[in-house]
């Protein structure tokens, strides 16, 4: 192994006595660990499993959409009378699948993987910290998340099933649906929110307090900036949803009517509640979180992609400062756009005008970020590694997702597109071939740091090309269907409506594409496990990268660095004229 590049006089005292004295038992080392890397991996694996589960729910939905009323093959008979008698899906069960697919993908899959997983594992390494600022709170936030996940899963077991009012849980529908699913959902959400709050406090404190010597804010890798802004969004946007969750829970279990208006009549019977509630209030509180939440889903992805692009173009990122200012501005703006989800509620033209304007303004920093990343590719001799392929694909996919969002942000066009498959297509381009691709890129990129082995390139490329083709075949037709007026959340895929007949056949195409997408993930799963054991063993810095995580051993021990890391330069000094190598790491002094 290479010699440490910092002078031996600054040898870390901690690092030594750790190895000598701290003999942790198996449970403390792998299960109830306070080490940010172990917690990061726990988050990542749990998140990946939930993604797989959410993907499975979606496969059931896609079957029903492609072949409404036909028995589900293989698993149909196992679903039981209350979900799919004789294997044929009930509408109530479709609604549960939809609501839980959305909830699980967003709150139990992507955020835990992107923030809990990558943030926890990579961020402290990139800032040269020995761990998070509050390691015990870090452990707690994982376990609180875990409990929230178990509660969400458990909600499928009662025969009345899981929540079925969409991931948005709009009132009054969610309150008056007389099943226990929604109560499980609310309690689960309160756990997940608490976990995110604990995590975000930890992240912000760590970034402010534990940066290595010489690592000023403007020398932070962009990934760290992305996590920093994300943490503020989680910290400040989640509490209002927690409040809303508590209020809805009161409506569910204590018989209050915060969100129930007076004079509500259900199946011909007046509802016996005090009334005077305000159903739109839920929407405001929900979207006050949920718009910032979409940036929580996308910013870490942008951070990952930036790291990988700089590394594989062997060039500094184009416009680092513009990237940083944009991401901070985006963070601020994301708090004042929420009601663009509510143009159809009749909230008035003044409100609409305000939220349309802010929505158009917030698209500017996103465009700046995307442009800066595109320009970074200009004139580079690109290394087309698997992580780079995923990162490259992120750019046009996120681009499509972003651009198709603009018509939704303008009330006149949104009136036509609202609640159609166009919306489903739009946000899935952002979160699936966008964020999920970036997360795969990150796994291929940092796998060697976490395990000391590289993943297989051939399997990686099969995984990439297969996924790219299939995922576009799933989501591109949704724009066509949506423009034709096909509604979302239809358990028969819209077959009952005359105006959908011309676009129904796309449901079958999407079905095949979705099974294909599932099959290509098998390459990833095989690759993952195979590489753990037989992957090519690597040293500290296999990608010849410049940021601090590549100074630590692969995998890093408890306490991370063998010597105290000191930062001498900006994060992406690739191909510096006159330098001996084409990369000048942050941890190497000027005349190295």
């Amino acid at each position: 192994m290479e010699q440490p590049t910092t002078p031996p006089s600054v040898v870390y005292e901690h690092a030594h006595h750790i190895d000598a004295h701290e003999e942790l038992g198996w449970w403390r080392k792998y299960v109830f660990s306070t080490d940010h890397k172990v917690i990061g991996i726990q988050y990542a694996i749990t998140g990946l499993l939930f993604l797989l589960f959410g993907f499975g729910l979606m496969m059931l939905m896609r079957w029903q959409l492609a072949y409404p009323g036909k028995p589900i093959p293989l698993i149909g008979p196992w679903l039981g009378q209350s979900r799919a008698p004789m294997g044929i899906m009930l509408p109530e069960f479709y609604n549960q699948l939809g609501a839980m697919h959305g909830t699980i993908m967003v709150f139990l899959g992507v955020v835990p993987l992107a923030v809990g997983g990558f943030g926890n594992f990579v961020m402290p390494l990139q800032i040269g910290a020995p761990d998070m600022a509050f390691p015990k709170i870090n452990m707690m936030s994982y376990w609180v998340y875990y409990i929230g996940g178990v509660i969400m899963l458990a909600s499928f077991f009662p025969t009345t099933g899981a929540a079925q009012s969409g991931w948005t849980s709009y009132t009054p529908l969610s309150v008056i649906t007389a099943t226990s699913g929604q109560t499980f959902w609310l309690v689960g959400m309160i756990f997940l929110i608490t976990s995110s709050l604990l995590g975000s406090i930890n992240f912000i404190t760590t970034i402010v307090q534990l940066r290595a010597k010489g690592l000023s804010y403007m020398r932070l890798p962009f990934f760290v900036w992305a996590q920093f802004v994300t943490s503020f969004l989680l910290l400040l946007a989640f509490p209002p949803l927690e409040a809303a969750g508590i209020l809805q829970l009161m409506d569910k279990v204590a018989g209050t009517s915060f969100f129930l208006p007076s004079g509500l009549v259900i199946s011909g019977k007046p509802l016996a509640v005090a009334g005077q509630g305000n159903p739109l209030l839920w929407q405001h509180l929900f979207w006050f979180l949920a718009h910032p939440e979409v940036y929580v889903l996308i910013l870490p992805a942008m951070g990952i992609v930036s790291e990988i692009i700089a590394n594989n173009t062997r060039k500094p990122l184009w416009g680092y400062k513009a990237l940083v200012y944009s991401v901070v501005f985006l963070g601020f703006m994301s708090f004042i756009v929420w009601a663009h989800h509510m143009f159809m509620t009749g909230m008035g033209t003044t409100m609409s005008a305000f939220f349309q304007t802010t929505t158009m303004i917030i698209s500017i920093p996103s465009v700046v970020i995307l442009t800066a990343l595109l320009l970074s590719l200009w004139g580079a001799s690109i290394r087309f590694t698997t992580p780079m392929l995923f990162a490259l694909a992120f750019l046009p996919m996120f681009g499509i997702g972003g651009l198709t969002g603009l018509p939704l942000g303008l009330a006149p066009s949104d009136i036509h597109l609202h609640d159609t498959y166009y919306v489903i297509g739009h946000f899935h381009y952002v979160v699936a071939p966008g964020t999920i691709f970036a997360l795969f890129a990150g796994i291929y990129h940092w796998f060697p740091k976490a395990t000391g082995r590289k993943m297989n390139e051939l399997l990686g490329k099969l995984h990439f090309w297969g996924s790219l083709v299939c995922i576009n075949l799933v989501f591109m037709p949704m724009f066509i269907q949506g423009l034709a007026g096909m509604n979302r959340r239809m358990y028969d895929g819209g077959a009952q409506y005359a105006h959908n007949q011309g676009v129904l056949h796309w449901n079958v195409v999407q079905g095949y594409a979705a099974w294909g997408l599932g099959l290509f993930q098998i390459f990833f799963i095989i690759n993952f496990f195979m590489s753990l054991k037989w992957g090519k063993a690597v040293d500290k810095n296999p990608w010849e990268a410049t940021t601090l995580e590549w100074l630590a051993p692969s995998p890093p021990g408890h306490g991370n660095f063998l010597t105290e890391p000191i930062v001498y330069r900006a994060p992406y000094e690739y191909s510096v004229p006159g330098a001996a190598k084409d990369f000048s790491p942050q941890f190497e002094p000027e005349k190295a």
Partner: protein
Amino acid sequence: MNIPYTVEERPDSGLANGKLGIWLFLASEVMLFGALFSTYIILRTGATEWPHGELSVPLGALNTVLLISSSVTMVMAWAMLKLHNWGRHRLYLLATFALAGIFLVNKYFEYSDHLARGEGPSHSTFLAIYFTLTGLHGLHIVGGMVVMAYLLGPGAKLWKQNPDQFTNRIEYTGLYWHFVDLVWIFLFPVLYLL
């Protein structure tokens, strides 16, 4: 392993980790109660009628006095540590704990009085807000008492090993306690007087 700046301040931020952590936590709490107060405003402005005089102002006022006093004793508990007066510190912390306890006992009487008359949270929007907001605030009081009990009991050992760290913990608990107090200072006029 030693995490830097757990006790001493980082020069460029001027903060120890815990201090920043507690401020961030309070920022999120502001958003939580902010959302709940907004709910109150929206429901109240949208209501056709709003009940008055349903709550006992003397009891509410008494509780306000109790909490403000407990904030003062909390500051004193911290100041006594700075003066290295351990005995007085214990006394003031215990007083804070006791005042919080009396607050909860009062609250219990108020609650049971309402429930005895069949006026639970489902009775009206006003009572729904009253029970939810004061209930959540009460949980915050209980949380503070748990922390104080720890610092009075097993957590007190830290004073011998690391007095600075212990003093910090009391300071952070104090910051939290002042926040809980502040929430009540909003709740009292909003629910009892207006």
